């Protein structure tokens, strides 16, 4: 709170005048002869008490009138953000005083004592709350620096998410924000300091040069990895808290989009505003109430790895906001060429895209349509594609979407099993017959007897599967160990053929990382696979439907117990009895996956009970998926993702015996840069721009990978939040809305000058003086009788 004429507060001293007059010049009542005072005396004490109440009340009213007059003339003003607190305090105090007067009157008139206390107690409470609230507001109140010309510390926060590129009246929202910001800069008092923050910057400093700031503001461009809006505001407030100027102003430039201004975000902002009461907030709304835009949804691919000669299905959703009419959606493919891309004359040259499909779509405002493209005969290698929609609309960034798939030959996998073990389930799960016929399988399986393993050239295979392996010669285990160490993948499914002492050779233990202990048996159906942590890549597919996977429908009657002998071993799943089920053991550049129960037992294996119902249970799709994911992981592609959102990191698994460890990364627009592989993967962190990314390396020949980056759909969602609700939640006194340039000065005036109490106090003064006059008239009427 500030006082325009603080010197007039000395007028409060005049409050003593009525007191002095009351004590010294107290008007004596006229003496009257009245013989019948014997009928006056009985209730005289009560009457005199009432008289004293009245006298004190009148004195208090007169003191209050003088105090109020002095206070009003001192012209108190508070910051707009605090007006609510002060008004609440005023109302509480007024209610308290009213109840106090009522209670006093009831006491004086000897009416209901209960009513008197029922008035006085709440009065005391209300007065207490009112004073406490006023004191709190006083302490928290921003200093009202009266006058417009005191320098300010201002932070401009710009929402530079992609939707700010929306064009309305041939001007993007960001350009509109920049224009208003320039106007605000022009009106800032001399010696003000300004800092700008946008959705991408993480730090900012104050500048004394408004022209430099204006130039920087004009350079703002949409960013595709915007930080959450509350984080930006928090940073801005922290910056302001370090500012030297007493007057601090925060300017938020936003289109009031419902994603950025979600209820959670608004609540966070409200809390931030409460913790920074010294800051004046301005919200510059550059949004458009009725946007017109056609949005192309993110491509949904049937698979990111497509077998050579396989089919790729691409789906997308086209939705319209305020636009009616027919549009064409095109699908284009860049044929893979190891020479591309390259930089020529400072420009990135990419292969010419080939049109592979068009779909017409008729749009209605608010409608959405799903479109599907089927692609066959894709060339082998990394294939980039894009979806485009014809015609112009407000926002261009969501008119093109990118995708990348890897077209390749099936991975050779060696399946080895003893003679009496069936490899049928494993082989059919990895390479189903129908796909085999069409040449669309991901794995090319070769089955051998386990006795023949020693004679196989394992380097030909991307992975080796041992189904129910019996004890083998140490040389075979050593061969497998060498294979895995050089980057091979080994899957072992233990079964009844294994035996504890014979399996625990040093080579076996080095390979598997465990020793076999004993066979666990279960008579009922209470033991089954129970994955607990789905973070490992082999559980990737199960993550979204974890609770609905029917593991309990496939009981395990026997399984091996293991003693973990290496701290490298990672437990990927347990059984429901708590024993380890699936383990991973990285060895050299390769890895071993060990399942302690077989995937080869039929319903009636000769001469024994089956160890589980994994294979012959009803609809054993979990095991089917798990086996595929295990093999994908072993061939080092399980986690590879070729289509990500902007800002997401991309990890490409590398095959150590094939791939180089250095790549050149070609972003869509920026300069190419070198990247070195870390271990068996390549991590690309910077994916800020939507488009195709290419990675080129050399090892023997050119090794080419790639991926696509798209802007998340929520960043191009143009639906607005309800501005009224936002202002309601954040407080209209705290947040000054600005939509046009001409509103700036008015809003600033309200915030900087604050709100004066003079009119309210004068009104109160008139009311109080009137009450005093009426009361005094009644009190002293016919005094001279």
């Amino acid at each position, binding site marked *: 709170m500030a006082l325009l004429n603080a010197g007039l507060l000395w007028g409060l001293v005049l409050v003593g005048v009525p007191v002095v007059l009351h004590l010294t010049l107290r008007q004596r009542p006229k*003496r009257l002869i*009245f013989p*019948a005072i014997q009928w*006056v005396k009985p*209730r*005289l004490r009560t009457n005199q008490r009432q008289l004293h109440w009245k006298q004190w009340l009148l004195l208090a009213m007169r003191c209050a009138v003088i105090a109020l007059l002095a206070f009003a003339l001192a012209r108190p003003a508070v910051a707009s953000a605090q007006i609510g607190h002060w008004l609440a305090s005023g109302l509480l105090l007024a209610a308290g005083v009213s109840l106090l007067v009522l209670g006093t009157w009831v006491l004086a008139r000897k009416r209901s004592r209960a009513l008197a206390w029922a008035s006085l107690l709440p009065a005391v409470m209300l007065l207490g709350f009112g004073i406490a609230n006023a004191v709190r507001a006083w302490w928290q109140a921003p200093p009202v620096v009266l006058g417009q010309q005191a320098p300010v510390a201002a932070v401009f926060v710009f929402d530079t998410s992609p939707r700010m590129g929306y064009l309305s009246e041939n001007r993007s929202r960001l350009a509109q924000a920049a224009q208003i910001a320039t106007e605000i800069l022009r009106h800032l008092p001399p010696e003000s300091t300004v800092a700008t923050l946008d959705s991408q910057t993480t730090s900012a400093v104050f500048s004394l040069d408004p022209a430099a700031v204006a130039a920087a503001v004009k350079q703002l461009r949409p960013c595709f990895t915007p930080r959450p809006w509350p984080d930006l505001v928090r940073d801005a407030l922290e910056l302001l808290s370090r500012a030297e100027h007493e007057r601090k102003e925060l300017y938020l430039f936003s289109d009031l989009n419902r994603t950025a201004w979600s209820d959670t975000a608004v609540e966070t902002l409200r809390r931030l505003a409460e913790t920074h009461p010294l800051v004046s907030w301005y919200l510059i709304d550059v949004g458009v109430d009725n946007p017109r835009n056609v949005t192309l949804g993110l491509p949904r691919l049937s698979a990111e790895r497509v077998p050579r000669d396989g089919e790729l299905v691409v789906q997308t959703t086209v939705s319209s906001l305020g636009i009616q009419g027919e549009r064409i959606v095109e699908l284009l493919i860049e044929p893979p060429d190891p020479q591309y891309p390259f930089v020529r004359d400072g420009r990135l040259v990419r292969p010419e895209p080939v049109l592979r499909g068009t779909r017409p779509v008729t749009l209605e405002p608010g409608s959405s349509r799903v479109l599907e493209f089927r692609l066959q005969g894709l060339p082998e290698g990394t294939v980039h594609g894009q979806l485009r929609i014809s015609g112009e609309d407000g926002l261009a960034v969501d008119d093109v979407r990118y995708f990348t798939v890897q077209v390749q030959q099936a991975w050779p996998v060696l399946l080895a099993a003893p003679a009496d073990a069936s490899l049928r389930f494993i082989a059919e799960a990895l390479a189903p017959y129908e796909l085999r016929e069409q040449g669309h399988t991901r794995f090319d399986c070769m089955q051998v007897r386990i006795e023949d393993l020693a004679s196989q050239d394992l380097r030909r295979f991307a992975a080796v599967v041992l189904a129910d392996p019996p004890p083998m010669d140490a040389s075979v285990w050593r061969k497998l160990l060498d294979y895995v160490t050089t980057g091979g993948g080994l899957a072992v499914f233990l079964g009844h053929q294994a035996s504890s002492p014979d399996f625990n050779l040093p080579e076996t233990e080095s390979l598997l990382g465990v020793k076999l202990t004993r066979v666990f048996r279960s008579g009922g159906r209470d033991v089954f696979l129970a994955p607990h942590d789905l973070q490992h890549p082999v559980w990737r597919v199960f993550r979204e439907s974890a609770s609905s996977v029917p593991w309990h429908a496939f009981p395990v009657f026997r399984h091996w117990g293991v003693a973990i002998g290496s701290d490298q071993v990672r437990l990927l799943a347990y059984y429901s009895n708590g024993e380890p089920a699936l383990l991973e053991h990285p060895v050299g550049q390769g890895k071993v996956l060990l399942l302690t129960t077989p995937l080869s037992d039929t319903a009636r294996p000769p001469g024994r009970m089956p160890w589980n119902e994994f294979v012959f249970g009803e609809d054993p799709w979990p095991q089917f998926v798990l086996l595929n994911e295990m093999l994908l992981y072993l061939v080092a592609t399980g986690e590879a993702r070729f289509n990500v959102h902007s800002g997401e990191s991309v990890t490409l698994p590398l095959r150590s015996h094939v791939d180089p460890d250095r790549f050149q990364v070609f972003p869509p627009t920026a300069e190419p840069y070198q990247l070195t592989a870390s271990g068996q993967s390549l991590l690309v962190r910077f994916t800020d721009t939507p488009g195709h990314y290419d990675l080129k390396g050399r090892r023997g020949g050119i090794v080419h990978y790639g991926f696509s980056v798209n802007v998340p759909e929520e960043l191009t969602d143009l639906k607005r939040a309800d501005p009224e609700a936002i202002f309601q939640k954040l407080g209209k006194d705290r947040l000054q809305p600005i939509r046009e340039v001409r509103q700036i000065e008015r809003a600033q005036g309200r915030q900087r000058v604050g709100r004066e109490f003079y009119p309210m106090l004068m009104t109160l003064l008139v009311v109080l003086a009137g009450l005093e006059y009426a009361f005094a008239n009644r009190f002293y009427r016919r005094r001279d009788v």
Partner: protein
Amino acid sequence: MASVEQYLRPEVVHQIKRLDLRAQFVVKGFLQGLHASPYHGFSVEFSEHRRYVPGDDPKDIDWLVYAKTDKYYVKKFEAETNITGYLVMDVSESMAYTYRQELTKFDYSICLAAALAYLMIHQQDPVGLILFSERIHSSLAPRSKRTQLGNILSLLSRARPAGKTEAGRSLDQLSAMLRHRSLVMIFSDLLCDVEDVLRGLRKLRHRGHDLILFHVLDEAEVTFPFRGLVMLEDPESGEVVEVDADNYQREYLEEVARFRTRMREELGHIGADYVPLDTGTRFDRALMEYLINRQARF
């Protein structure tokens, strides 16, 4: 109160005369309306004879008729009463008070007393006057002569209200003074110890006197017309109280009403009349109403 005539202004006398006519005082006797007389008077107005029956007083036997007829007859006379009346007037200082009326309580009481004295003397009943404040300090023996009215009014016009009211003590004195059963008419504002007053009245009544208590208050004393802050002073004791009159009228009137109610009940209990009056009411009208009311009771 300079002249006697002031208390017997022609219009008052005329009013009283009309009152006489209307109340049939002159014909039937004022005191018949005023009180139920048990006395036998000296009237000669014969009414009728009737046969003696056992139980009749033998002295009423008309012996002349017995001589002529040899039968006992008793004489019947017109029922007439002669009674001695005493006008007992409070002349304490409080009786000199008026707030905004033409007459003080004392003047008002004199008017009442003069009217009653006129009536009694007019029908040849003796009437006396007694003045008291702290004690009885003046008195006029009862006479029925026409000059008695002048004497009474002369004494009253000379009287000056002064001193405190000691009604109890004065009534005790009065009780000792009165030899015969009389009609005692007391005029007072009763601004004294009410218990003493009641004790004195009971004693008078016990001695067979008929009592009428005219409780005369000033109009201000029954309406409490003050507003705002006032300081009230008792003229007799000098006691001062400060009162916020605005909030006190109701309480005061309740006190007065309670006092009057008690007096009415106490006097009714001992067979005496209590007549509350205030100077805001015309005394002739008040007196007439009382007399009519009293006549209706007998």
